[in-house]
C-alpha cells in the first residue's frame, strides 16, 4: 500500500494517540521500510518513535532501563551494558546498528532478532503504554503473543547479570552481518562448580526466540563440562521447532544445535 502519513510523535503518550488511527509503529525502520519501499506494507500510516523521547539508556542500582527506540549502537555505548557488545557485533552491520532499535527487535521475524534472544535469556521486562495506561510484561510474553492493538512497547528493563554469568554464541555463515543459524544466550551461575541457576534462550531454531527448558533442567546441579553440555544440547532439541531458509535447513539447525549450545559455554 502507499504510505499516506508518517507520524513523528514527540512523546510516548502521543505515539499511543497516533496509533489509535491504525498503522504501524516504526522504530529504526530497518524492518518496516523495506516493506514500504517494495510496496508490501499492509498499512497506510506509520508512527515513528524516532522523536518520542524513548531512545535513552539508563542504569541504576543494577537495573538497565533501555528505551524502545534506543539504537543497538546506543546500547553498546553504555558502559554497564558492555557485556552485550560481543552479541551486538554479531547483529547486522555497524550502519544498520545505528538505526535498528531494541523495541523493534522484539517484533522481527526469525532468524533475525538476536537481541531479543539475549533479552529472553536476561528475563527482561517490557514496559508497555496503551490507551488504558501503562503495564509491564515479561519479554517472554511479548515475544510469544505480541502486544494488544493500540499498545506500544516503550522500554525494556534488564537486571544486569552478575559478572561471569553471561554467555553468548551465534553460528552464522559469515563472521559479520549474517542472520542466525543458531543463537545461544544464557545467564548461568555456578556454585562450587555446579550450576545452581540457568536460563538459556535460543534463536534461529523456532518461529520466535525460545527457552531451552529441557537443557536448563539437565544442567542444574551439574558441572559445565563438555559431556554435560552436549547432553543438554541434545535435550534442547525437544525445545525447538526449526525452519528451512536461505541460511540453513531445519535439519541442519537441529543437527548442530548441541555443538553450538556447548560452544556458548566452552568456546
Amino acid at each position: 500500500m502507499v504510505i499516506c502519513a508518517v507520524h513523528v510523535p514527540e512523546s510516548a503518550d502521543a505515539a499511543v494517540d497516533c496509533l489509535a488511527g491504525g498503522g504501524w509503529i516504526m522504530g529504526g525502520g530497518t524492518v518496516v521500510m523495506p516493506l514500504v519501499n517494495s510496496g508490501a506494507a499492509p498499512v497506510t500510516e506509520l508512527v515513528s518513535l524516532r522523536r518520542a523521547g524513548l531512545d535513552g539508556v539508563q542504569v541504576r542500582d543494577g537495573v538497565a532501563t533501555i528505551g524502545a527506540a534506543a539504537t543497538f549502537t546506543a546500547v553498546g555505548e553504555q558502559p554497564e551494558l558492555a557485556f552485550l557488545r560481543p552479541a551486538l557485533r554479531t547483529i547486522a552491520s555497524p550502519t544498520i546498528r545505528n538505526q535498528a532499535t531494541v523495541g523493534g527487535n522484539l517484533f522481527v521475524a526469525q532468524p533475525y532478532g538476536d537481541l531479543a534472544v539475549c533479552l529472553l535469556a536476561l528475563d527482561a521486562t517490557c514496559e508497555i503504554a496503551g490507551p488504558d495506561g501503562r503495564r509491564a510484561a515479561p519479554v517472554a510474553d511479548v515475544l510469544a503473543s505480541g502486544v494488544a492493538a493500540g499498545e506500544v512497547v516503550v522500554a525494556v528493563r534488564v537486571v544486569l547479570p552478575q559478572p561471569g554469568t553471561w554467555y553468548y554464541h551465534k553460528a552464522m555463515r559469515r563472521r559479520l552481518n549474517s542472520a542466525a543459524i543458531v543463537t545461544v544466550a544464557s545467564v548461568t551461575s555456578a556454585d562450587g562448580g555446579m550450576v545452581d541457576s540457568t536460563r538459556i534462550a535460543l534463536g534461529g531454531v523456532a518461529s520466535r526466540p525460545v527457552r531451552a527448558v529441557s537443557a536448563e533442567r539437565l544442567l542444574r546441579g551439574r558441572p559445565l563440562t563438555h559431556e554435560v553440555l552436549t547432553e543438554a544440547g541434545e535435550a534442547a532439541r525437544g525445545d525447538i521447532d526449526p525452519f528451512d531458509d536461505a541460511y540453513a535447513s531445519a535439519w541442519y539447525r537441529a543437527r548442530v544445535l548441541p555443538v553450538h549450545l556447548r560452544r556458548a559455554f566452552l568456546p
Partner: protein
Amino acid sequence: MPSQIVSLIVNGEQREFIAAPGATLLASLRESLGLTAAKRGCAQGACGTCTVLVDGRPEASCLVAVETVAGRSIRTLEGVAAGGELDEVQSAFVDCFATQCGFCTAGMIMVAEALLDANPEPSEEDVIEAISGNVCRCTGYRPIVIAVLEAARRRREQVVSR
C-alpha cells in the same frame, strides 16, 4: 496527510523541500535536492550504497522516512571534497584502485569517513567490520580495505605535519 515542507542541514547548508508522506531520505536527496552520489541499490538496507551520515553516523538512507530526521545534519559524498579538492579517503580510493564500477563507492567512502572520524587508527579488522554492510558486487573488497587503511595513514600524517 498532505506533502509537507521538510528542512534538513545537508553538507552544512540548510535545505528545504517538499516531501510526500513516506518519502525516504535517499529519494529526497536524489530527487528533491539533486544530490545523486548516494545510490538506490536494494532499497532493503542490505547493500549499503545509499549510506549517508546522519549527525555524523552512517545510516542507510533508503530506510529513513525523511520526516523522521527533519532538522538533523546530513552529510553526503558531495560534502566530502572541501573546496573541490579530494579528501584523504577519496584520494586513497583513487590511488589504491578501490573503485571498479563505482556503484558502491559513495557508500563505502561515507562509512570510511565515519570510521576514521571515530577511530583515526583502525585495524584491518575494524575496517572490515565498518564496511560489512556495504556490498561491492565487483568484489573489489581487498583494494577498498587497503584504501581505507591508507586514508587513515594519510590523515594521521597530515595531523602530525600540521
